[in-house]
C-alpha cells in the first residue's frame, strides 16, 4: 500500500467539540494509519485535547475502533469522550 500524507477531517463531539471550538478537527496524517496514531495526531495538533487523551474514544466508519484499527484515506473518523446517553 502506498503511504500518502492526507488531511483527515476528524469529527469531534461532546467536550472535544467544545474544546476544539468546531465540529471538525482537520489533521495531517500519513495513511494508512491507525486509530491510536490518529488520536496522537489530533492531540498533538489540538493540545487542548491532550489532557483527555487517555479517556478519548475513536470511531472509524461509525464503529468503535481499537488502538490498532486501520484508517485509510476516505474513512470517516471521529474522536470523542466516553459516552453519556440515557
Amino acid at each position, binding site marked *: 500500500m502506498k503511504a500518502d500524507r492526507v488531511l483527515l477531517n476528524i469529527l469531534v*463531539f461532546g467536550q472535544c467539540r467544545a474544546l476544539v471550538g468546531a465540529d471538525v478537527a482537520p489533521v495531517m496524517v500519513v495513511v494508512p494509519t491507525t486509530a491510536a496514531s490518529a488520536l496522537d495526531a489530533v492531540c498533538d495538533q489540538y493540545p487542548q485535547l491532550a489532557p483527555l487523551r487517555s479517556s478519548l474514544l475513536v470511531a472509524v466508519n461509525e464503529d468503535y475502533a481499537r488502538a490498532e484499527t486501520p484508517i485509510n484515506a476516505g474513512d470517516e473518523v*471521529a474522536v*470523542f*469522550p466516553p*459516552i*453519556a446517553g*440515557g
Partner: protein
Amino acid sequence: MELDSAGDIIALTPEPIDTPGIVRRLVRARVGAVATFEGVVRDNLHGRRTRHLDYEAYEPMALKMLRRVAAEMRANHPDLDRLALIHRLGRLQLSETSVLVVATSPHRATAFDACRFGIDRIKTLVPIWKHEHFEDGDVWVEGVRPTLDL
C-alpha cells in the same frame, strides 16, 4: 416517527418524546405485556441543582448503534414483539424524557428483560453526550467507555 421494516421505532429526535403515542403504535393483538423505561431529567446531579441539560449525538453512528441494540434484543429474545428505542437531543428541561425504551411481547419476562437490556446497552454503546447546566455552573457529564466485544 415511523415504524421501520421490523415494525420498530428507532429514532433520535429534537422534539419531546410522545411515549403514549409510541406505545399505542407498537402494541398489536398478539401482545400481552408492555415494559417501558423512561429516563427523565432530574433536578440535581450529586446535589448540585440542575437548570437544564443539552444532549448531543454523533447522529449517524448513534442511529447505527441503536439499531444494533435492537438486533441484540431480538437475538436474545425470540418472542420479543415490536420495540422502540428513542433518544431525545438538544435542550431538555426538568422532568422531560431523555430516553424511551419500549419492549412488547406475549409474555412479561421477555418484555422486562429486553427493556432492561435495551437501556443498559444504550448507555454503554450509543455515542451521545450530556452537558448539564446548574444554577451555579455547568459540566460535561462523565461518561462510560463502551464494551468493545460485540
